[in-house]
Each structure stands twice: as structure tokens, then as C-alpha cells.
């Protein structure tokens, strides 16, 4: 539903057609001056169009130049290129990596120098079939292995971690 003002504007501009036009003109029958008013509105439009020609933009090049200066002044300076920042980041990570490697080497060297090592096994494994299949040590730090000494031609039961064994326990099955 349109207001009278909307219909009248559309009527002045020739934007009404068909049934809408017929119905509105029927409504306007009560306003005999409406046609004159529409013609006056159209005359006004012609007057405005005929006398509203804007002057040419004087000094058009200066307009562009001045605008360019304003844009330059009001545009924040662009950021520095990203590449140097990346290079700086890469340099920092590289230094950190080398420092990490240095400290790893240092820690490894300290470990080997300060932690006592178990002496290397002086004896070669036995050539005979002698092997500890199962053991039940009272201390979990004690382990049992067999070794063969070719010089003496003997097989030795090696109990690693056992500091002391009571004499009554020395009897072997």
C-alpha cells in the first residue's frame, strides 16, 4: 500500500501504469488541480536540468596533485619489508641451535668423565654350553652370567653386584 505522496510522485514521473494508474487517476478526480500540479512539477524538473550544469573542474591537474599530496600525508608509512625480519628470526634460531649443540656436547663429555664405568668384561664368553637360564636374587641389583676363561680353561659364574656371600651359601647344587 502506497501513500498519496508516493503515488503522486510516481504519477509525476510517469512510473504508474495499468490498473495502478487508472485507480490513482480515479482518486484524483476529486482534485481537479492535480493535473496542473503534475505539469508544474515537470516544468520544475526541466528548469532544474536546464540550469544546473555544473562548471568544469578548473585546474583539474592541480586537483589531482593536491589530492595525491593529501593521500600521501594521510596514508601511514608502509611497514619495512618482511625479509630482514625473517632473516633476524632465522639468525636467532640458528644461534640457539648452535648453543644447544654446544651444551649437549658439554653435558655428554661431563657424563663420560664423571660417571664411573663398569670395567670391560675381561673374559670371553664360554665355549661350553653354560648359561644362566634363571636366577632368584634377593637383591634386584644382582645379576648372574657365565663366562669362559680359555687360559685356565674354566667356566666362571659371574655374580655382578654381589658384594658378600655367606660361607654357608657357597655350597652349589
Amino acid at each position, binding site marked *: *500500500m*502506497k*501513500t*498519496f*505522496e*508516493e*503515488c*503522486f*510522485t*510516481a504519477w*509525476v*514521473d*510517469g*512510473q*504508474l*501504469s*495499468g*490498473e*495502478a*494508474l487508472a*485507480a*490513482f487517476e480515479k*482518486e*484524483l478526480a476529486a*482534485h481537479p*488541480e*492535480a493535473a*496542473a*500540479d503534475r505539469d*508544474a*512539477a515537470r*516544468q*520544475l*524538473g*526541466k*528548469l*532544474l*536540468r536546464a*540550469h*544546473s550544469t*555544473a*562548471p*568544469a*573542474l*578548473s585546474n*583539474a591537474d592541480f*586537483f*589531482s596533485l*593536491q*589530492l*595525491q599530496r*593529501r*593521500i*600521501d600525508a*594521510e*596514508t601511514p608509512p*608502509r611497514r619495512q619489508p618482511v625479509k630482514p625480519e625473517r632473516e633476524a628470526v632465522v639468525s636467532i634460531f640458528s644461534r640457539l641451535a648452535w648453543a644447544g649443540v654446544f651444551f649437549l656436547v658439554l653435558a655428554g663429555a661431563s657424563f663420560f668423565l664423571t660417571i664411573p664405568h663398569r670395567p670391560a668384561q675381561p673374559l670371553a664368553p664360554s665355549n661350553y654350553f653354560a648359561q644362566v637360564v634363571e636366577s632368584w636374587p634377593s637383591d634386584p641389583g644382582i645379576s648372574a652370567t657365565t663366562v669362559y676363561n680359555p687360559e685356565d680353561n674354566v667356566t666362571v659364574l659371574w655374580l655382578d653386584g654381589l658384594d658378600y656371600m655367606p660361607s654357608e651359601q657357597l655350597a652349589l647344587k
Partner: protein
Amino acid sequence: MNEVAMTSSNPSPTEGTEPAGAPADELELVAKAQAGDTAAFDELVIRYRQRAFSMIYNMVRNEQDAWDLAQDGFVKAWKSIGRFRGQSSFYTWLYRILMNVGIDWLRRKQIESGTEFDDTMGLRNVEAGAVTAPRGELAPVERISDKEIRERIDAAIAKLSPEHRAAIVMREIDGLEYSEIAERMECSIGTVMSRLFYARKKLQAMLKDVYENI
């Protein structure tokens, strides 16, 4: 009341000159400008500076103000060009910015000068549809010079509110369709038609002796 059936008997003067979207070379310039290329933006300025100036001039009716406001409009366009999506031509997008710049300036001027625009001034006791222009009350003018006509038009338009002024300029001078005006003023088509109705009535009342005697 009747439903309004719109016809397209009054083609917009922009038809045939502005495609629905932006032309390819224009889009290329816009893309470059969006990437910060001021030379590309300058090319767009060169293309549209005269139209922008004319459009603003018709709103403010003063050459120096129109120059400054056209510059403001282009600066705003530069700052917000990243938001241009190419769904309309660049000028259509620019036109909306210029229109807002013009309306804002008129509102500021209105506040500074203490002027109040009464959109229904002189129409309160007039029946809708009644002839509102004075009839035969003014002495006929034998010959009015173009300069004088322009001054009368300027003075009459200056008495319109910014919204009525924008509506009448877009419709009568720039020849835009109601839908285009509504889109650029961000209001309904009904509001546009209503603004046109009252703006015309006021101008008819002020300029009747002019358009009847030329």
C-alpha cells in the same frame, strides 16, 4: 489506496554507460590501488574527477566547497578502497561516498548556522494533492537572465534539508531511478518518493514565477 506499478519509461542516464559490474580495466586499476598503488588510484581520479565535482557541486551549489568536498570524497574512497568488491562500477561506489560527504557537510553547515530545515514547511495545512504553488500572486517576469535563474535555483535548493536536496539532485539532475536513489541514500523507495514529493512542492512554491516565465 492503489499499489504503485513501476514502469521503466524513464531510463536512467547511467544506462548504457555503466555496466552492472565494474569493467575489467577498471577492476585492474582498483586491484592495484587496493595493493597500495597510488598511481593506479590517480588514474581512477582522472577518470571520475569531473563527474564527482559536478555531482557535489549540484548538492552544495558552490565551486570552492565542491572542490574541497570532492577531494574529501576521493580521500575517503582511497582509505576504504579495500572494501570495494567490484559488484558495481567504481563510480557507483564512489557516488555513494560523495553523496554521504555532501550530506554530512550540509548537516554540519546547518548546525553551525543554526538553520533548521522544516521538511513540511508551508505544507501543513495543504491537502495532499492540492496545488501548493502560489498562483498568479507574483508579478510576471518579462525576462530573467540565466545568471538570475541560477541564483534563484541555488537559493531555493539551499532551503531544502540535506536529504530533500540529495533526493531532488539525484532524481532531477542526475536522473537516477528511485531504487538507485534508495540504495545510495540507504533508505526505502517509499521514503525516496515521499522526499521527492515534498522537495518538489517546496521548490514549486519558491520557483513558480521562474519556470512559468522562461
